């Protein structure tokens, strides 16, 4: 498959495994022994019901009053500007999910969700957030694609005691630096540790031919965070490669020609890149034209949206991740939730959910709905904010991308690292020859920050 300096992907089978993560695994013995603890397991199993409106197990057995007025939910993502490559499919997914829940009667089969959408493309994200939390008084705010914006609103969420779910942002700084003792803030997708540390482990355990490595990441919080984590992981795992180039082109860049020339001149075997959006399309176009990928294997940690946006710019055999196992097509079978989600999205919007954000939106909304239903089912009382927070801590449930859990003691969901090779031979552009790494291998233990963890390896 690969016609580059890398002759093949040879996963060691221990750290890096071939195939896909177990699609419907709950919590396995290994996770248990890795320190998640009994509370996590209990909470995880408690959360393993099928989500409201998306399965057969949404019946309510507990008593208590369920509020009759609709639940007010605000979602925030980029619906304009270059970042709308993620924001638009996220909003589409959110709309679809909420409609499905409401068609089944709503949360707990009784309480409908009233969904409002807000564009993240604003200079005044702090003001927007404060307005949503105070004047508009939303029950839950779910949103944010930009790392910078999540770092801005995180501390405000805690200050206002507003339950908030970050549904797409990757930066590890969110819980490592900005909000170190979260009460009301949760993230229902993996942090960039999953992508960057995962890529380093793929290098060490599946791409042993690689000798030289370069990076190209956007010059803002997310890109810098990704490269820092990747280079720290290379050092921490003592991976025998030389880093020959690290480039940080500006975000929203129309010209990558000099960047590509510099990468061509340093001639790395492997490029780690968290580029996304129009920047990724521009980079790919100009790199393809200049033969950069002829003898270099690029690894794009969150770029599968380009399969939809510019499929003709995706040569076969490039390594892609999707911020976790969030891809619609590959040479494998996912669970029924995955198949339902992909087919529903396609039939409603006429396109495939190639942007991982669409899966993240599903996870964000169902994390909240599941937490309410679990709390109600356990206590018989519709949860207030404190009970909701308790229910979210340790939550675990099946998603279209496999089992997702928020470890006890953490407010950050963890997901396996997942990679595959671009393949246009089938009906749909897909990731094939996929490999994955267990979530506990690419995330720090709950009590450590990512940096502390990497520093102690």
């Amino acid at each position: 498959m690969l016609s580059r300096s890398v002759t093949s992907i040879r996963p060691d089978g221990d750290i890096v495994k071939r195939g896909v993560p177990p699609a419907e695994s709950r919590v396995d013995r290994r996770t248990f022994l890795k320190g998640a603890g009994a509370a996590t397991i209990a909470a995880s199993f408690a959360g393993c019901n099928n989500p409201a409106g998306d399965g057969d197990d949404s019946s309510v057995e507990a008593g208590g009053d369920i509020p009759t007025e609709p639940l007010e939910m605000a979602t925030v993502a980029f619906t304009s500007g270059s970042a709308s490559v993620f924001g638009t499919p996220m909003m589409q997914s959110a709309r679809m999910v909420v409609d499905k829940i409401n068609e089944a009667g709503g949360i707990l089969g009784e309480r409908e969700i009233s969904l409002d959408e807000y564009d993240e493309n604003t200079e005044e994200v702090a003001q927007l957030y404060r307005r949503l939390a105070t004047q508009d008084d939303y029950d839950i705010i779910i949103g944010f694609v930009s790392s910078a914006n999540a770092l801005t609103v995180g501390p405000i969420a805690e200050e206002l005691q507003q339950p908030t779910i970050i549904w797409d942002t990757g930066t590890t700084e969110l819980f490592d630096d900005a909000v170190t003792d979260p009460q009301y803030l949760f993230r229902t997708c993996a942090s960039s540790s999953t992508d960057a540390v995962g890529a380093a482990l793929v290098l060490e355990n599946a791409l042993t031919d690689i000798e030289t490595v370069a990076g190209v990441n956007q010059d803002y919080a997310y890109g810098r965070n990704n490269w820092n984590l990747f280079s720290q992981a290379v050092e921490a795992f003592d991976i025998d490669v030389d880093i020959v180039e690290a480039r940080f082109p500006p975000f929203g860049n129309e010209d990558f020609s000099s960047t590509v020339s510099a990468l061509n001149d340093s001639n790395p075997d492997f490029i780690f890149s968290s580029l996304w959006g129009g920047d990724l399309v521009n980079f790919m176009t100009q790199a393809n034209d200049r033969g950069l990928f002829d003898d270099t294997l690029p690894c794009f940690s969150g770029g599968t949206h380009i399969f939809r946006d510019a499929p003709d710019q995706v040569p076969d055999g490039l390594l892609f991740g999707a911020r976790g196992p969030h891809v619609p097509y590959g040479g494998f079978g996912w669970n029924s939730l995955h198949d339902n989600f992909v087919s529903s999205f396609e039939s409603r919007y006429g396109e495939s959910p190639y942007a991982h954000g669409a899966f993240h939106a599903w996870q964000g909304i169902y994390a909240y709905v599941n937490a309410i239903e679990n709390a109600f089912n356990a206590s018989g009382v519709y949860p207030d904010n404190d009970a909701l927070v308790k229910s979210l801590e340790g939550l675990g449930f099946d998603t279209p991308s496999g089992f997702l859990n928020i470890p006890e003691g953490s407010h950050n969901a963890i997901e396996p690292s997942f990679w595959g090779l671009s393949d246009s031979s089938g009906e749909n552009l897909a990731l094939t020859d996929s490999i994955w790494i267990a979530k506990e291998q690419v995330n720090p233990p709950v009590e450590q920050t990512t940096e502390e963890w990497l520093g102690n390896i």
Partner: protein
Amino acid sequence: MVIELITQQIPLVLNALFLASVLFLLGTGLSIIYGMLNFLNLAHAAFLVLGAYVASTVVTQIVGVFGDTLGTSGLFIILVLGLLIIVPFIIAMVGLTMEQTIFKPIYGLEDDYQLLATFGVILMMEDGMKFIWGGQPVTASAPSELLGSISLLGGSTYPLWPIFGTVLTMVIGIVLYYFFEETRLGKITLAMAEDDEIVGVTGINTRLVHLQVYVIGITLAALGGALFIPNASMTSGLALQFVILAFAVLVIGGLGSLKGAIAASLLIGFTRSFGSYYIPQLELAIVFILMAAVMLIKPTGLFGDIKA
């Protein structure tokens, strides 16, 4: 070692020339419209973006209709004709409509008001483009793919499209120079830039000349977009990037100067290409540093007179 160093510079020079070409087409239009019409159109760069979007549609349609019937050469020729004729024509029509409805009423206003008003136009145009083409990046790589690549000294591959675009822009530059220096309309235009009231009393229809200059400016920006997109992609939000670059050309080159636009485009193209290669930390700042340096040394720009 020396040979390797020289071969390293070749793609950088080619990158610089292509970037300079796009900037020349963008900046010249803005410069002559401001120089001749005294209209500071912040939205000028949005016509480059619109040109790129329209080019993507034109390329897609041409490939869809002729892709299976024409050979490589035939398809390439049709695509180039589409980019050089259909795209500028469509943008000129859109531009004329906007001139009549939006720009004409603000011609007499102070620069400050023109800037504010035309900034609003950028936002309207961006939303309009997003409404039509969506928020996702659009591409039109077929012309570049058909043209292929060459091997440079040192063995690296380089696409032919940027070289083609550079040559084409040089031809356009020569035609423009001839237009301003040798044609009657060009000379009238230059005279109007000095004093359009005097030109008006000679019986020349200055409004018509205004419109012709305006259309030339808009068409040049559209050509910039049409040449740019086969080697890149277009996303909503990029218009402001091009606004900054267009004004950099205007400030560095001097208002209303064709020579200034050429010099400024080359200066920015080379500074940015080499700067972002050797000092990537300054990729964003480098154009502004250049602008500041030129303004300190020669506040009117390198060729600050309104002459060809």
